[in-house]
C-alpha cells in the first residue's frame, strides 16, 4: 500500500535527503520514495511548495546546474541553518514517537 507523507514530516524528509549532498527535485522525490521502500508517495504538488517554503526559511539554498545527461535543473542544498533544523526536527520526532507510543501502548512502558 502506498501512502501520502504525514503532514509536517515531508520537510524533515527533504532535509534528510539533502544532508548527503545537493540534488534536484526529481532526485529528491525518487530518493524518498525508494528510501521508504515505495511506501511513501511524493506528490510533486506538495514537494515543490515544500522546497520553496524551506528555501524561504533559509534552510535550503538553490542553484541552477546541469544533470549527468546535460539537462538544466535546479539543485537544492542544505544550509547550516537547515542542518541544525534537521537535527532538531529529528530529535523532536523521536521524542514524539516515544510519547505517543507511551500512550498507545501503556503496558509496554511499565
Amino acid at each position, binding site marked *: 500500500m502506498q501512502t501520502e507523507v504525514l503532514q509536517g514530516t515531508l520537510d524533515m524528509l527533504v532535509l534528510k535527503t539533502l544532508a548527503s549532498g545537493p540534488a*534536484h527535485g526529481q532526485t529528491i522525490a525518487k530518493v524518498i520514495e525508494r528510501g521508504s521502500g515505495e511506501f511513501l508517495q511524493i506528490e*510533486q504538488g506538495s514537494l515543490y*511548495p515544500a522546497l520553496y517554503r524551506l528555501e524561504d526559511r533559509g534552510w535550503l539554498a538553490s542553484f541552477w546546474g546541469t544533470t549527468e545527461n546535460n539537462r538544466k*535543473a535546479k539543485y537544492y542544498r542544505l544550509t547550516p541553518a537547515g542542518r541544525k533544523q534537521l537535527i532538531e526536527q529529528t530529535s523532536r520526532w523521536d521524542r514524539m514517537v516515544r*510519547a505517543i507510543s507511551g500512550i498507545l501502548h501503556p503496558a509496554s512502558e511499565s
Partner: protein
Amino acid sequence: MGFRRFFHRTRADADHVREFQSFLEIETDENLARGMSPQAARRAAHLKFGNPTAFREEVYEMNSIQFIEALSRDVRYALRALKAAPTFTAVSLLTLALGIGATTAIFTVIDHVILQPLPYPAAGRLVTAWETNPTSHLPGKPPGSVGFSPGNYLDLRDQNRSFAQIGAFYTASYNLEGGAAPVRATAGLISAALFRALGVRPAIGRPFTQSDDTAAAERVAIISHSLWRERFSGSAGAIGSAIRLDGQSHTIVGVMPPGFRLFEQDVDVWLSLERKTSPQNLHWRWSYYLTVVARLKDGVSIDQARQDVDRVVQGIRRQYPGDLGQGGLVVPLLDQTIASARKPLWILFGAVAFVLLIACANVAHLSLGRAITRRREMVLRQALGAGRGRLVRQLFTESLMLALGGAAAGVLLAQWGVRALLKLASNEIPRAAEVHLDGWVLGFAALAAVTSAVVFGLLPALAGSKADLQQGLQENGRSGSGGPGARAGRRALVVSEIALALVLMIGAGLMIGSFRRVSAVDPGFAPHGLVTMRVSLSPNQYGSPDKQNDFYQRLIARLRAVPGLRSVSAVDGLPFTNGGFDNSFSIDGRPDPPPGQPLRADIRRIDPGYFAAMGISLLEGRTFSEADRIDAPPVAIISQSMAREYWPQERVLGKRLTIHFGPPEGIGAEIVGVAADVHGALDAAPVDDIYLHYPQGRYVGQMDLVLRPEPHSHMELSTLSSVVRAAVASIDPDQPVYRVHAMDDLLSVSLATRRFEMLLLAVFAALAGCLAAVGLYGVLAYSVQARTREIGIRTALGASHAQVSGMILREALQLAFTGVAGGVLGALALTRLLSNLLYGVRPTDAFTFASVALLLLAVAISAGYLPARKAARINPVIALRHEC
C-alpha cells in the same frame, strides 16, 4: 516569511516554469532509457507531474497569500478563543479601554497644547523677550521678570543683533460706541512689525505698515473676525468704514482670520501701538508693560539671543541706573503662551500612564492565569506539530486582538473624555480651541495598544508556551498552580499594581488636602452675596479727575437710593481680578532704597464705604470720609501686614508716605487707618495694600462697583445689572457696564485650575485603586482555587473557618503591605514633582501618606474578603475528590 516571495512572485514564477520543464525533461529521459517510445515517455512524465498550470497557480497563490491567510487564520482562531472566555474578554477589554482611553484623552490635550507648534509659520523661531527682575512675580510674565518699558523696547528694537523682526504688544480696553448699547472692547496695541514677525496677515484688507506707526498718520484699526461678523454682518464693505473707540474714529483697514489669538487673549480690535501712544509716553522708561515678540534670525539660538538682549539691557542700566531690569531673558513664544499649564499636564499624563500600566498589569495576570489553564491545550497543539514560535504567535495575536479592541473602545472613551475635559476646563487649558482628536492621536492609541499587548500578552505567552510535552501530558488534567515561577510573577505584578496605585492615591490625597486648605483660606473679606460690575469712562468725555469724580459720586448716590441694596461702594481694582496696581512708594523720614529696588505696594482707590461693603475689618484708626476731598490733605489706609512689615514696633497712625504716581512729586499722604489683609488670590499671600480715597487718587478711569443686596431681597445678577445699567444710562448713556460677576463665582474661578487638576488626579487615583483591587482579587481567587486540595486537607485536619479565611486574608495583607511599602518609596521620590501645585501641604506630608496607605490596606482587605469566604466554605470531602 512570505513577504519576500510576495514581492518577487513574478520572477519566481518564471523560475518555477523552467524548473518544472526541467523535471519533465529529466523524467522523459529516464522513461526513454527504460525503452518507452518518445510519445509514451513524455505522456508518462506529464502524468507523473500532474497539471503544471494548476500547480503553478497553487505555488503562486501560496506565495502571495500564505502570510495573509496565516494571519487571518490566527485572527479567526483568536476571536474564537476569546469568545469562549467571555468574562476574561470583557474584563480585559474594559480594563484596557479605561487605561488606553484615559491616556489617549490626556495625550490629545498634551499633543495640541504642548507638542504641536503654534499656528504660525516656522513658529519654533518665535520668542518673547523680557527684562529680568528677581523680585517680580507678575501674572502673565515669566517668574522673575518684567516687560519692557516703551523706551527700553525702542532701544532693544534698534540695538539687537538677533532678531529678524521684533514688535511690541499690550492690551487695553476702550469704549466701543455706535452699537445698540455701549460695550467695552479689548484692544491689542501692536507695532506694525509684530504681525510680520508672527507671519500672519488679515484675512481681508491689509496689515499695518510702518507709515501707520507715525504720530501724524490716520487712525487705523484691524478688527477681529467676530467683531466683523457682529458689527458688519461679515460684509466686505467694512474695510474703509469707521469704528469709534473712546470717542475717536478709526478707519478699518483689515479683518483678522477667525480664531486668531495672541497669548490666548481674545482681542476685538488691533491698533497701532506707536500711533496710539503719545511721543512722550513712547520714550517713557519707567513703566514695564510691553510684551516683546520677535522672530530669531536664521542660525541664532535662544541662548545667543538671550545674551544679546542681556547686552542691550545692561547698556540701558548703565544709562538709567534706576531701571527695574537687571538682565535679559528670552522665552520661546510657545512656552510663554502655555506657561503654567505645561507641568500640570505632564503630571496628569504621568498619572494616566500609571493607570495604563496598572491596567496592563491586570490584563497580564489575567492572561497569565489563562495561559496556565490552557497549558494542556498548548501541549496538545505542540504534540500535533505546532512549533513554539507558532504558539507564541497565536497567543500574541490574541493579546493584540484584545488590545486593539480595547484601543477602539478607548478611543471612543477618549473622545468623550476630551469633550468632557474641554467642557470642564476650557479656560484652564491654553490653546483649548485647538484640541481635538486627530490622526496623530489615533496613532498614539494604536501605539499604546501594541505596547500594552507586548507587555501583557507576550510575556505570559512565552511563559505559557514553555510547556514540556511529556510533563504537560502527564499532568493529566490537574490544573497545576502554573509552577512557582508563574505564581511569583503574578504576585510581583499585583504588588507593583498596588505600589503604582498608592503613588497616584498619595498624589491625589496631597492635591485634595491642598484644595481643602486653599478653600478654607479667609480672603479677608466676606465674598458671599457680593456682586460686582465695572464701569469705565471714556477719557475724551471724562478727561479730568473732577468730571470722573462727579460721575462716580452721582452713580454711587443713585445706587444707594435703590431699595434692596444694603451697601454700595466702589474700588478701582477689585481683589481676585488682578485689580489694584503695583506701584512704588517711599516712607518719609527714611533713606531711599537703592535704585532698582523700590518699596512696592498695590494702590487701590476706594469709595469710603468700601470696607463696610466688602466686610473688611478696620483694625486701627478711621476710614475715609467725604471730607477727604481732592483739595484736602491726602490720607491713606494701609493693610495690616504692611504696617507690621515697616513699623513693627511703632505706632503707624500719623506716619507719612510718598506714593510715586500722579504729579511729578507724587502723592504725599498721612496714614490714618489700618485695614485687615486681603488676598489677591486664595493661594497667594496677601500683598501690601495702600488705600486712597478715590478723589485724592487723581485719575481714575474705571471703577469696580461693589454691591451687597439685602439677604432676603433675592435680587438676581441680571436684575442687579439692569438696575446698574439704568443708573449709569441716566447719567450718561454712552458709558458701558461690564464684567458682571457674583463675588463667589470669582473666588471659585480663581480655584478652577486647582480644582481641575485635583479632580482629574483624584479620578485617575480612584481608577488605579479599583484596578489594583480587581488585580488583587484575581490573584487571591486564583490562589484559593489552586489550593483547594490543600485547604480541604487543612479543614479536614481541624482548621476552623476563621483560620482558613485568615490564611487568605494574611496573603492579601502580605501582598498589600509589600505594595504599600514600594508605593510609599515611589511616592517619596515622585511627589516632589507636585510641590508647585500644592498649598499648605508638604509633598511628604506624613498624615496624607499614612491615611492613604491605610485606605489602600482597607481596600486590599475588602478585595480579599470574597476569596477568603470562599476558602472558608470549601467542603473537605468535595475538595479532596477535586481533580483526582
